[in-house]
């Protein structure tokens, strides 16, 4: 089996006829246990890049292989399944369903994937919360809206990690946090990752948090973007 979690070759993506936005990627790879920080100004296609990786949009040309499976030409339902089975995704902010408990928010992470469910046991929530410095007894039944932003983001990490997906995508997960929390968040994120062979791609507008990452790249080094 290939060591590549993600492998992109000669990808071309274009939007619409009136708005001219195109994004080309010659080559991109994410290997097991790899961690990549992609930084760059906003509007340079970071979101498009993540949407392409996670299969919510499709390129016109080129290949995207996820764990050896080419998703660029498959149906959207297969892409949805692959995303559910192999990805853990963390957003900038508002990651959680505010009305649901911490427990249900974390469980949601594996609700649409039988693979994640089979890889996950009953203690996983507790373990994840411990690793992320979340007090299990205290927080497990609390509603998401009762938590601080920092706690919410850590619960979001737990949701992304539950069921041990191979690929973790994080879209500016620290932007809503203050400096000391940012650092702590990154530390906890990496601490939770260590045991597995998970690959992490994090997108951020600055690269101050880069010291933990194996690879740090500007978005422009990965994609060639035309926006006129």
């Amino acid at each position: 089996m290939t060591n590549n979690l993600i492998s992109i070759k000669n990808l071309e993506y274009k939007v619409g006829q009136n708005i001219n936005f195109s994004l080309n990627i010659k080559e991109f790879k994410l290997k097991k246990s790899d961690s990549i920080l992609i930084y760059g100004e906003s509007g340079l296609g970071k979101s498009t890049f993540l949407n392409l990786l996670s299969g919510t949009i499709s390129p016109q040309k080129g290949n995207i292989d996820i764990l050896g499976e080419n998703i660029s030409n498959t149906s959207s339902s297969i892409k949805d399944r692959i995303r559910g089975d192999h990805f853990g995704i963390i957003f900038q902010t508002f990651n959680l369903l505010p009305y649901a408990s911490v427990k249900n928010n974390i469980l949601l992470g594996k609700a649409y994937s039988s693979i994640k469910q089979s890889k996950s046991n009953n203690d996983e929530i507790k373990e994840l919360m411990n690793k992320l410095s979340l007090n299990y007894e205290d927080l497990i039944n609390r509603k998401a809206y009762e938590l601080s932003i920092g706690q919410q983001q850590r619960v979001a990490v737990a949701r992304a990690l539950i069921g041990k997906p191979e690929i973790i995508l994080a879209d500016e997960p620290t932007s809503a946090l203050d400096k000391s929390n940012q650092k702590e968040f990154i530390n906890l994120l990496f601490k939770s990752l260590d045991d597995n062979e998970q690959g992490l791609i994090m997108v951020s507008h600055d690269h101050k948090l880069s010291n933990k990452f194996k690879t740090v790249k500007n978005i422009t080094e990965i994609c060639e973007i035309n926006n006129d």
Partner: protein
Amino acid sequence: MIKFTLLFQSLLNRWLSCLLIILTLSFSISLFFTVSRIQESVRSSFQNTVSGVDSVVAARGGNLQILLNSVFLIGEPNSTIRWSTYKDITDNNKMNWAVPISLGDSHKGYRVIGTTNNYFKEIKYSSGKNIEFLSGNSFNDVFDVVLGSAVANKLKYNLGTEIIITHGLSNVGEVHTFHSDKENHDDHAKHEEHDDHSEHADEGHEGHDHENLGFKVTGILKPTGTPIDNAVYLSLAGIEAMHSGWIGNQKVVDLSIEQILQSELKPKTISAIFVSLKNRTQVFQFQRDVLNYKKEAISSVMPGITLSRLWALTGNVDKAFKIITFFIIIIALLGMIAMTIAGLNGRRREMAILRSVGASPTNIVSLLLVESIIISLISCVIGYILMIVIFSIGKDYLQNNYGIFINSFSIKNYDLQMIISIICAALIATIVPAIQIYKNTLRDGLNVKS
């Protein structure tokens, strides 16, 4: 399981708009069920009332009025016909049996029917069921009285209770007829010598208690679910006795019971005759005989045909009502669409989160559909319960005021069909927001819009 938990929590999170949708839907659904129930009950209680009567003979007048008056005890009594006419009708060779009735008096708002013992023997209800006695038996004596089951129940009368009959229809209007405001105790010309009471017609006189004459309850009928339950039955002699010494609404002579019993208590007039023919096919010939009767202007009404005419007349009103309530349901569903669509923008974050954990746009659309199934199902259940409550509260009112008998409650196949079609309609209505949400999820992808 977790998906369902989250679905319910999501609904609870939007409880106010959900509650409003459920309220509007359930009210309109209960309205629909109530209207169709009343419709059915009116129809069946009307149709069940006459059975085995081929013709109603009465003074010439509108067929409908004669029928409503004599069979359903609704509206003002007609003019009367002579006793001799009754005799002549019974001599008709096509006759199987004939039961005379005399109307125009009341007891505490319930109409009094003066008749013969044959009434209980011959008159049938609900396609051929006999009238049966719950207790006691028919009248033997002038001052005996038989009560319909509703009368006995409401007024808590037992066998042996002495009651006073009111001359005229006091309070009947308020309690029993459609024309309550116009009702008056028209003296129905029981006394031929004094048949002009127009001066009393609009004065709203109370009826006059025949206070000296106590009638004794000798029999109580079993419930029939027809106007039969709502009447008080006297012998024709009893009716005569009650009016002895009275001219119209005036008591002219105080007579003792002995004096009354000594006088000849033969009826001079009656209100109508229920007729059964030996051969039903002769009904038109009989009708011709009646029209050709020379001594008095009388007519023969065929209950079945007249009822069908009545339905032809009211059927359209019925339909209009049904259509209106149907539209009310549609309006409620439109409200549901509007609220769902208005709520979609606020739920884009929720959708993006679901997408990120692997939910397909189809999953998200089905989530919306399940939501509307839940909402419409809850609304149907509440609406249905509401209807049951409305009927259990309003049952007596309907029975007393409009003579509509609601049978004991049962869930009908029709209801289930209706509930299923309402849920289907709700699903169809959800297509619009579903398309919207499908587009949103495709466009938004994982970009959280908030």
